[in-house]
């Protein structure tokens, strides 16, 4: 009659290396997925930060005496303070009057952490507010 230790030893010799390879591959893929999720969350944060910056910009231009210059200055200030890292590139940020509204627009690029797998995320964002009379 074989002891439990003998059975265990036989089983291990039959599966030698199997768990290790599986573990390494599964861990690698899990970490990759984790990094992709982290990249997505950072991108969402930066998109929200730029939207907030545009909202702040148009609100700065709401008083009748203010205008597009105040809007652009405030929006740039907010972007620098809340998303000033290298992962966000502002390709264009403009403010202009459109009728009785002030409209801020931005074209941005969010850098991918894995350029080989996923390209940069480019998008156009916009905000508007009614100007005081």
């Amino acid at each position, binding site marked *: 009659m074989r002891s439990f230790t003998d*059975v265990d030893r036989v089983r291990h010799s039959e599966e030698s290396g199997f*768990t290790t390879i599986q573990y390494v591959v599964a861990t690698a893929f899990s970490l990759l*997925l984790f990094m992709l*999720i982290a990249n997505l*969350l950072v991108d*969402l944060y930066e998109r929200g930060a730029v939207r907030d910056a545009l909202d702040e910009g148009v609100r700065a231009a709401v008083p009748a005496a203010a205008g597009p210059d105040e809007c652009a200055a405030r929006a740039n200030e907010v972007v620098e303070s809340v998303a000033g890292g290298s992962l966000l590139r502002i390709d264009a940020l403009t403010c202009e009057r459109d009728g009785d509204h002030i409209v801020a627009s931005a074209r941005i690029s969010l850098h991918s952490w894995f350029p080989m797998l996923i390209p940069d995320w480019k998008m156009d*964002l916009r905000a508007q507010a009614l100007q005081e009379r």
Partner: protein
Amino acid sequence: MRRRCRNADGFVAIEWVASIALLLLPIVVLVATLPVWAERRHTATVAAREAVRRLVNDWPNANVDAAAEIAREVAADHGVDPGEVRLEVASAGAARASEVRVQVDVTMPAIAVGNMRAGEWHYTAVAVRRIDDYRSR
């Protein structure tokens, strides 16, 4: 009983399926859904603020349709389908020093992973502005 414990056939597969179902999927769903809720909540707040400003600016000839159009434009700017935003004017400001109150209701997907949506709930943002005491008509 001892035989069952020693037999590890299928153990890894079951462990894998269980970990995917109980850990990975819920986390992916949460990670994908929570930012959507935050964005839509912010959208509703901004839409309500802009709509109420429009009503106060136009007072006493406030146009509810124009305010609703503003709310829809704000929603579109924030990437929310304008059809998922509904504006309700609770009070249009009866006289000077009264308040204009609007509610913007936005549909929140219970689960949102990419373009896949399941279930929904609603969030309502409220914005209030006072008509100036000496506002000319």
